[in-house]
């Protein structure tokens, strides 16, 4: 557990020192979401109908953008070989990296989402459910994208490929996430969709570190 916390703390420290790099996906999220009113219509009724979808798709894209460098920096400077050879389990270390990454990219998304939701005229009563749904969905996205990042870690132009590999897998998150938000907007209980989001998170977070560490091992050869 000591190794988990040290790697987690190390990655957070690195993120804090290269903040400009890590804030890009968040700014991307805000910009993509704010482009939709220009393309569609600034009309409140239209925005309210498309708001949920816009918000979730922007969140999905920005979380992918953030994961390109997750393992690559460690592979490039030789740290990954040392992580692999260390007495700690590589899956646990990968889990620590995913967790640190979620704190840096997923958590700020939760804080920005209400702002975007309200600017799309979503009812304020639906915001807590939206944040809860994002809280359950963003770890799943981080876990899935980590597998994509591990598979493409030695490719120079891996960023686009991560999207191709991972975006189809994120459709359940998108379906249940938007469903939960829609139910909350119409004042209905959203527990069912939230449970499914939670189940997806538990499933992905338990298997993704194993898959990602196996992919890293193969790629380092």
């Amino acid at each position, binding site marked *: 557990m000591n*190794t988990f916390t040290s790697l987690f703390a190390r990655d957070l420290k690195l993120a804090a020192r290269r903040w400009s790099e890590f804030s890009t996906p968040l700014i991307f999220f805000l910009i993509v979401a704010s482009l939709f009113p220009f393309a569609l219509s600034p009309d409140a009724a239209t925005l309210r109908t498309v708001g949920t979808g816009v918000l979730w798709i922007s969140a999905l894209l920005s979380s992918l953008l953030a994961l390109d460098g997750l393992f690559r920096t460690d592979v490039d*400077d*030789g740290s990954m070989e040392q992580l692999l*050879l*260390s007495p700690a389990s*590589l899956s646990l270390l990968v889990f620590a990296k995913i967790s640190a990454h979620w704190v840096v990219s997923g958590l700020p998304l939760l804080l920005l989402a209400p702002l975007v939701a309200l600017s799309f005229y979503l009812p304020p009563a639906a915001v807590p459910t939206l944040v809860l749904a994002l809280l359950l969905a963003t770890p799943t996205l981080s876990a899935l994208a980590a597998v994509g990042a591990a598979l493409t870690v030695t490719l120079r132009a891996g960023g686009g490929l991560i999207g191709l590999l991972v975006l189809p897998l994120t459709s359940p998150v998108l379906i249940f996430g938007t469903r939960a938000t829609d139910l909350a907007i119409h004042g209905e209980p959203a527990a069912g969709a939230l449970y499914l989001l939670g189940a997806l998170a538990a499933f992905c977070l338990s298997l993704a570190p194993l898959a990602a560490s196996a992919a890293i091992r193969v790629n380092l050869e």
Partner: protein
Amino acid sequence: MSPPPGIRLSVRDLEISHGDRTLFSGLTFELGTGELATVTGPNGSGKTTLLRTLAGLRLPAAGEAMLDGTPVDVVAHGLTAPMAYQGHSDALKRDLTLAENLRFCEALWGGSANIEALTAELRLTPCLGQRVRHLSAGQRRRAALACLRLKRAALWLLDEPLTNLDTLGAELVNAWISSHLQTGGAAVVATHQPERFAARARLEIGL
């Protein structure tokens, strides 16, 4: 930081290829406690690839490399970590300070070394609070070697450990290797300057 006594590396009929090019084949040797092997050969002859194979980071094309009877790749993925590999890259985080890097290495390997004494020995004490990005190539190399000392590994696999080091640093590396061998460790060193290790090398592997 004395490694556990009694370690034996057995390499039999090892063949290593890169893509579809065979670098060498039929390599057989044994290395035991307190023994040092140097690996020499021109650039591109497969020194680094051999060390990475011995570290279990890649699989050989044929033959086997065993550490105490277990294939090295199984050992590498296990949780005991009896091997320390020092490659060309320093494996330091450039945006962390030297002290933070060393403390992370210590935590990762579960050691409890005296980092202050170690950095004093390496004459790196003034750099402890500096980010690794601002250190010179030689200082970074010394820091990487400090990490090596923090690992309680019985088998050292060193790829060109003298690169970028000044005379004093090179002497220190030699002294460390000597004390590592005396305390029951073993080492495989790839080098272009085999004469610097000749006194202690039991085995010279020419590729």
